[in-house]
């Protein structure tokens, strides 16, 4: 297996964070265009988050994914209020697995049902994958580089990677990095047909699923955002989280069941070492387990292999947002919040007792995906 990144990103501070999470229990999607489509259950944001009043006119033009992404970005950046001039030095990097599904579906539905009679231009322009990134740029006045990654489950990690590279090379001074995906009956139904999603209405309980041999997870939606800046630019006098390392690795063999747990544990330890972190320094290993027994088993085997060299505290987060392509953003933001605050947010569920009682100062977010991709992101105080 290749190791695509040196992994160490010293000197990058997380200056702001934003998080938009759905409700605590899955529910049914309100609008379904065909009886052939499943309506739920889905972890969805029943009420979209409020945006500052000056965005009121924009709201009618914002699609669901745009709204989620912009709300998270505004939390991370702070509402610039339209007072400052354009910012040429801040990049926007968005990762989204599915893009603006609702707007795309709306355009296609009208095109098919009306036999191309009256296609709506706004629905077309809203269907582009990069619309959330563009809306963030427009409303926050960010004129730096603007990239959208659409690479399945590692879309957010690639956006984060890109932001780090641009900061390292001077292409950007700061970066807003967002992971976002919206729930859609098309995605839910397609996922159910392929056995990825359950339709039984149960809540998500990651790492408990193996015992019950539950196949499939529960879909969700949400957005997580980080404002990255150079450590030298970070506000002084307050506890900050730093992005210490990131590694993304494509699969040699996409079959998750055949992954060698020792090799996976080696991937984790090696990625940590590249970030200048020893396994014993990690206060929390935040897992991307999603309640599907295949995914949970794979994570459990890795934790077991890691535990041979010492106990490790583990937690999960997808019980708070469901599963979606860019869900790693939620994990990384929750990890960064834990490091900033020195304590875990309620959205993180600990597996067992914490190994150490000290304040949280290092969180590693580990994801092993259905597609065989894996990633590790390290956040330190």
């Amino acid at each position, binding site marked *: *297996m*290749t190791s*695509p*990144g*040196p992994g160490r990103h010293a000197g990058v501070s997380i200056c702001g964070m934003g998080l938009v999470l759905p409700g605590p229990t899955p529910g049914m999607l309100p609008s379904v265009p*065909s*009886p*052939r*489509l499943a309506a739920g259950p889905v972890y969805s944001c029943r009420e979209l988050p409020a945006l500052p009043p000056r965005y009121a006119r924009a709201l009618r033009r914002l699609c669901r994914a745009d709204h989620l992404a912009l709300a998270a970005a505004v939390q991370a950046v702070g509402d610039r209020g339209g007072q400052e001039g*354009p910012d*040429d030095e801040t990049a926007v990097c968005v990762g989204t*697995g*599915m*893009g603006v599904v609702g707007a*795309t*579906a709306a*355009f*296609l*539905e009208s*095109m*098919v*049902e009306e*036999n*191309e009679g009256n*296609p*709506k*231009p706004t629905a*077309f*322009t809203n*269907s*582009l*994958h*990069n*619309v959330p*990134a*563009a*809306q963030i*740029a*427009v409303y926050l*006045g*960010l*004129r*730096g*580089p*603007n*990239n*959208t*990654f*659409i*690479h399945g489950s590692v879309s957010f990690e*690639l956006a984060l990677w*890109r932001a780090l*590279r*641009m900061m*390292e090379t001077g*292409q950007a001074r700061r970066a807003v990095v967002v992971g976002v995906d919206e729930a859609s009956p098309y995605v839910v*139904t*397609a996922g159910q047909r392929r056995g990825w999603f359950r339709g039984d209405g149960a809540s998500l309980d990651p790492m408990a699923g193996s015992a019950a041999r539950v196949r499939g997870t529960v879909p969700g939606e949400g957005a997580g955002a980080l404002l990255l800046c150079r450590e030298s630019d970070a506000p002084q006098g307050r506890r900050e989280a730093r992005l210490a390392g990131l590694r993304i690795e*494509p699969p*040699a063999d996409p079959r998750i069941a055949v992954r060698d747990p020792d090799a996976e544990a080696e991937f984790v330890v090696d990625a940590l070492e590249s970030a200048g972190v020893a396994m014993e320094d990690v206060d929390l290993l935040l897992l991307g387990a999603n309640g599907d027994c295949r995914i949970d088993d794979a994570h459990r085997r890795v934790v077991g292999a890691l535990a041979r060299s010492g106990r490790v505290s583990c937690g999960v987060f997808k019980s708070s947002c469901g599963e979606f392509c860019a869900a790693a953003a939620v994990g990384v933001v929750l990890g960064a919040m834990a490091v900033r605050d020195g304590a875990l947010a309620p959205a993180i569920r600990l597996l067992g007792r914490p190994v150490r009682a000290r304040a949280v100062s290092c969180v590693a977010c580990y994801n092993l995906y259905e597609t065989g991709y894996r990633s590790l992101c390290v956040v330190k105080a």
Partner: protein
Amino acid sequence: MRTDRVAITGIGIVSAAGWTPEELWSAIEAERSGLGRLTLFDSPRCGHVPVGQVIGDPAARSGLSRGSRTDHFAVCAARDALEDSGLREPGPAADRRRMGVVLGGTTGGMLSTEAFLQKLLLDEAFDAALLRDHQCCAATEAVAAGLQLRGFRATVSDACASSNAAVAIGCDVLRSGEADVMLAGGADSLTRLTLNGFCSLLNVSHEGARPFDAERSGLSLGEGAGMLVLEREEAAVARGARIYGLVAGYGSTCDANHLTAPMPDGSAAANAMRRALEMAGIAPAAVDYVNAHGTGTVTNDLAEARALRAVFGSRPPAVSSTKRFFGHTLGAAGAMEAVVCVLAMQRQRFPANLGFRTMDAEVGFAPVAHTCDGTIRAIVTNSFGFGGNNCSLVICGREA
């Protein structure tokens, strides 16, 4: 981060004007447009407008057992580019784990998704197989699997600036030492979504795009793929590779102004070009040729002309838009035009701005009317997209 120079050692293209770089260049020399009648699907509303549809069977050519039309284009162009670079066959010189792929795209498997929706909404049938290759990253994965590229993989979707961004990202991957070889490019197929979408915006020309012409009336859509094999120059020299030229610089900005309309003064686009030139260490006066984004819409061409004047002054270098040769291929446009730039530099010929007849006083310059001889050492190639995305590349010879 290393600061190695990045060499182009292989090129591949699939277009309405040809399936190989040679076929495309023949069309450019003959000033023969690839625009023609749409036969790929029925379109009651937009079927009459000329498009750059690729003729031939991409599935048969790609050899893939499954995949979208976009995937087939991507694999064909990628395979040709890798073959051209001499890295097609696995060997000691090519560690596949150190070879990656980054593609830009916007439509992915949308053609099949449209068929899925047709079945669902009109026949109440849910045919999940039609969604299998929906995502744009399917093309990246198909290329990686088909050519055994086991390293870095990414898919970027920045509207029509996607594949210029992919080339920039590919260069960053090489410079960070995360790979030794990067296949960078883009692929997109024609779809009902994009054809109807651009028609709904009243952006499509009924007679074929005429970029920068005073009577231009819109763009012409196309499809295809363009691929570049990128390596650190030092490594390419060490293995005795043929080097077409260098990707010497790249710059990206965002208008942050409007989802579809470009910034009228072209200031953010100008900044993208300035950043690319600054990275390349090349003064504007040293640029010999600009391959313009030049879609043929009134507002885009005007904004780009203003951007060019802001960077190069009132007398810019030779400028042409080559979109009438194969249409505006959206996420593939930047990479396909980068291939055109490589061919132009290799042959020391300026490609014609096909369709140009009358100078637009507001544009303020006349593009290259006919393919002709020129001295080409440094090129700027632009891609601008919806969402206000601007990405410029500087391609130059090793001695520039």
